[in-house]
Structures are given as structure tokens and as C-alpha cells.
């Protein structure tokens, strides 16, 4: 049944009670973030000034900001950014799909959970920094091995989140589905996954940030393009430390942006489920 009108009346009532518009809510959400960012930048600038650090040790925020802008406008950062973004999205697609499938399997089958869980945990406990060079050695240093490294690093949290989410579904809902003669597929897609969405999407939040880490590690293990490669170039070949910091800033922005996209998707899907 479409209860949008009643939801709208509820929203209007809430706004009337709290006195807040959507815009004001947005400001209340964003303002603390901006304030924290400003404090961070001021502390950073103070450390540079008080410690009298040279640029090649710790560049100040204005130097980094200037290099960030010039790095984008002169085309230094962009090609590496797109490569890393591509690796992250492909890795998340592969790792996320595998994580979902394995998570469902682990949730549905106690035998599979008993058999596979120790190995999945062991794989996760092995540092990706140690695995990445081996993967590059076995599969080469092309895009495929970098996507594989990204997929591996985000697989575990998504698999676990999916498993926990599906196991947390209210058994009465599943029983209700059975009573309506819903098939296994229908129970999975119409009841279990929608019910487990908060946990699944929560795991994707973690997965997406780990995928960014995985892409950088993979590029360090072997790659000719990407933000990880640019860090090496800036530090080891160009001795351009402000560019290295600007690249780190780019990586941070990439991670935060992807995280917020997942949060936005999560809000829409969970709200539409409700």
C-alpha cells in the first residue's frame, strides 16, 4: 500500500515541531565537519610554523592546496586518478558480488560456514601488503591483478556483513513467506535481502574504503599508473613532496566521496524498503 502521503504529513509535522527545514538539517550536519576540518588545517599550519619544518619534510596546508590545484590543472593527477577509480569500482564489483554470494551461502548453510569460515578469516588476517607482490608475481602487474587485490580486500567485510544480516532476519518473516508458499528465491530476494539491507550496505561502506586501500597497495606492487604510482613518482623520482601530499589528499577525497555515495544509496534503499 502506498503510504507516501502519510509519510509526507509526518515529515511536515516533524518540521513544524522541530522548527528545522531540510536545508537547516543539512547545515547542522555539514557545519561540524567543516569546523573539524578547519581546526585540523589550523593545527597542521601551526605545527609547520612552530616546528619550522621545510617543505620537503612537512609542507604547509597552503603549499599542499596550491600543489593540489596545479596538479589537477596541469594534468599530473587526473590520469592516475581515473586509473585508481577504475580499479576501485571494478574491485568493489568483483569483491562485492563474491562477498554477497558467499555471505548468503554462509548464512544459509551451517556446513558451508563451518567449512569455509576458518579459511576466509585466515585470508583476511594475512596482510594484503604481503599478498599483493605475490599476486603481481603470479598474475602480472596489469589491471587484472590490481582489481583482484581490491576485490580480495573488500570481500571479507561484505561476506561477513551479508551473513550476519541474513541470519538476523526475523524468523517470523521467513515463516510468513513460507506460509504464502514463497520459493527459496522469493524468500531470499523479497524478505531476507531487503531485511538485511542495513547490514549489507553497512559492510559496503567498509568495503569501499578498503577497496581504495587495496588499489593503492596493488599499484605499489606493480603498476604504471594510478595514485599509488604517483605517490612513488612524487617521492622517489620528482622529490615533489607537496605533490605527494596532494595525491594523498586526492586519495582521501576519493575514499570519502565513495563512502558518502554508499551512504546515500543505503538511505534511499532502506527508506524505500520501509
Amino acid at each position: 500500500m502506498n503510504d507516501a502521503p502519510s509519510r509526507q504529513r509526518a515529515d511536515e509535522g516533524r518540521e513544524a515541531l522541530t522548527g528545522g527545514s531540510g536545508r537547516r538539517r543539512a547545515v547542522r550536519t555539514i557545519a561540524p565537519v567543516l569546523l573539524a576540518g578547519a581546526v585540523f588545517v589550523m593545527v597542521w599550519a601551526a605545527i609547520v610554523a612552530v616546528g619550522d619544518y621545510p617543505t620537503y619534510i612537512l609542507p604547509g596546508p597552503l603549499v599542499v592546496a596550491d600543489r593540489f590545484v596545479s596538479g589537477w590543472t596541469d594534468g599530473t593527477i587526473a590520469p592516475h586518478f581515473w586509473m585508481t577509480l577504475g580499479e576501485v569500482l571494478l574491485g568493489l564489483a568483483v569483491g562485492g558480488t563474491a562477498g554477497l554470494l558467499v555471505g548468503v551461502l554462509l548464512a544459509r548453510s551451517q556446513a558451508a560456514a563451518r567449512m569455509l569460515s576458518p579459511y576466509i578469516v585466515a585470508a583476511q588476517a594475512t596482510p594484503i601488503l604481503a599478498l599483493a607482490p605475490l599476486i603481481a608475481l603470479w598474475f602480472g602487474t596489469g589491471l587484472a591483478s590490481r582489481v583482484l587485490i581490491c576485490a580480495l580486500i573488500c570481500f571479507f567485510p561484505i561476506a561477513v556483513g551479508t551473513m550476519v544480516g541474513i541470519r538476523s532476519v526475523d524468523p517470523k518473516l521467513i515463516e510468513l513467506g513460507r506460509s504464502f508458499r514463497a520459493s527459496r528465491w522469493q524468500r531470499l530476494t523479497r524478505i531476507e535481502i531487503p531485511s538485511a539491507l542495513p547490514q549489507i550496505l553497512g559492510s559496503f561502506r567498509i568495503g569501499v574504503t578498503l577497496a581504495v586501500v587495496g588499489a593503492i597497495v596493488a599499484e605499489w606492487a606493480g603498476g604504471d599508473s594510478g595514485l599509488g604510482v604517483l605517490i612513488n613518482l612524487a617521492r622517489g623520482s620528482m622529490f615533489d613532496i607537496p605533490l605527494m601530499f596532494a595525491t594523498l589528499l586526492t586519495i582521501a577525497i576519493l575514499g570519502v566521496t565513495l563512502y558518502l555515495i554508499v551512504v546515500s544509496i543505503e538511505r534511499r534503499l532502506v527508506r524505500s524498503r520501509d
Partner: protein
Amino acid sequence: MDRSPYPTLRGAAAAIVAAGLALSLSVVAGAQDANETAAPSSLTVGLGYIPSVQFAPFYLADQAGYYADSGLDVTFQNKIDPELITLLAQGTVDIGMADGTSVIPAVSQGIPVVYGATIYGRDPNVVFSLAEAGINDVSDLAGKKVGIPGRYGSSWVALQAMLETAGLTPDDLEIVTYPDFGQAVAVSTGQVDAATGFSSNEPVQLALQGLEVNVLSVADIAPLPGPGLVVGTDTLATKGEALRAFTAATIRAMQEIEADPQVGLDATFARVPELASDPDTQQAILEATIESWRSDYASEHGLGSIDWTAWESGLEIMRSLPGSVVSDSLTVEDLVTSELEP
């Protein structure tokens, strides 16, 4: 008034006391001087990223007491070039062996280091291949698969410089990266047609396996400044004397090893016993290393001397490379100092 009956004795006693005091004072002063000269100057020395027979001069100078005789207490650290340059600039490491091709972009970026003495008179970077690949000239690299450790460092600079002489760029090759420095295996197993390396390393390894190797040397094609002793400018100002003594002792060891490589091998094996498990390979590497120390300029002016003219041309080569960060206003005087030269 009567005079003392012992004027001469009193005077003599006073003279004796005065002499004794003077003698005591001079002994004390001498002891203090001795103490001041006896305290050695501590130097932290940065060498390349792993212990190697290529650092034999440093090992020999240390074990033969040349550093101690010069009043130095030397500690070695192994660092990769980018870290070493920064540590030298900070003064955390006092002197180190680093690439001349790292000094140029570093100084261009305002990092306060300077090159003080030549170790490798010929840049040891090469492109090597199996003879059967038929790569006899840089132009033969077009369209070939070439293995490199990464698109950074002296080998990357050297490759670009060599390609430029044949009108090529890295885009004309298929570059394959080996971040674990496995280029020798890659060439020997045919994964790539050629690879970058050091004249004293990969080609030597392959030749010892009985493989016939072609070597294109950047020193013959596009001469660049080779590795040498690099210092931070602040350290040079505060520890100049100690650094000069260190340089002189190191060059003395180089001369001895050049005359008799065995002394270098012995010093290396004493320092790094693991390397003694394959003495033939280490001997071959050391002999190739000694060859790289030599140059026409070094023959005329001695090991350790800096060829400023070669630095001028090397600076121009690096300035002309695609994506170069070398400032147009940079001069050789900004990069090189004669304060440590013998």
C-alpha cells in the same frame, strides 16, 4: 736589617716550585688536548638499500681502521635513494652514497643536498638483453617488451635518456614492471626482450649462468652523473672536516681495491658473511663495479674527482626529458661541491 742567610736557596726553591707548577699545568693542558683530539667524530653513513659487495670500499676503510685513524666513528645504514636524500637533507644521515640523477631533481625541489665526490665514474645503469634478442642498439628497442623496476629512480631516468637519443619514448616500448627487481629472471626466461639494470648486477648474473648478454650502457649513450657521496648542506657546514676525512679514507680504500680486488672481497665477507657463500659471483660483481668507478676523467684526475663538464651535460639531458621537474635556473654549482674532493 740582616738579609736571609739563604737567599740563593729561597730563590732556588721558588724557582723549583714555579717550574713544577708550570710543568703540572702543561701536563694538564696536554692531557686536555689529548682528550679533545681523542674523541672521535661520529658519522652516520647511508649506503644503498641492501648490503652488497658494491660497498666494499666502505667496509674496507672501516675494517682497516682508515676511518678510526682519521678520528671518525662510522655507523652504516642501508636506505633506498629517496629516503636517503631526505635523511641527508635533514642531517639524520651525515653522508651517503646516492645517485647523481636523484640529486638533480631533489635540489631542483629545494632539498638542501649537494654531491661531494664521485664513486661511479661511469653511470652503471644499462639495458641488457640476451644476445639472441638481437638488441644491439637503442633503436632496436622499439616495439620490444622491456622490464623495469618502476617508473622512477636512476634506471627510469637512464632509460628515457637512452631512448631520446634514438628519437624514442617509453610509449614506443611495452614496459613491464618488476617491483621485486626480478628483471634478470624476466630476461633469462623470455618474459621480456630486455630490461634495465646495473652493469655490475644483472648482466653479471646472466653471464655467470653461461648466457650471452648484450648490454647498452647509458654511460656510452647519454652520460649521466653516477652515484657518489652526497651530503646535506647544513651538515657540510658543521662537519666539513670529518666529511673530508671520511671521503679521503673511502677513496684510499677504493684505490686499494682497484689494485687488489681481493681485499675488497675479504672486507665484504667479513661485514656480510652471507655473501661469502658464492664468492665467484661476488668477485664478478666487484670487478664489474670497479670498472664503473673508472672513467677517462678519473684516470686523469683520480678516483673521487668530479667531472663538472659531464655534470653540465647530464643536467641538460635531465632537463630535456619528458615531464622533467628540473628547474631552468638550476646550475651545476647548485648541485656539486668541491669541498670534499681529494
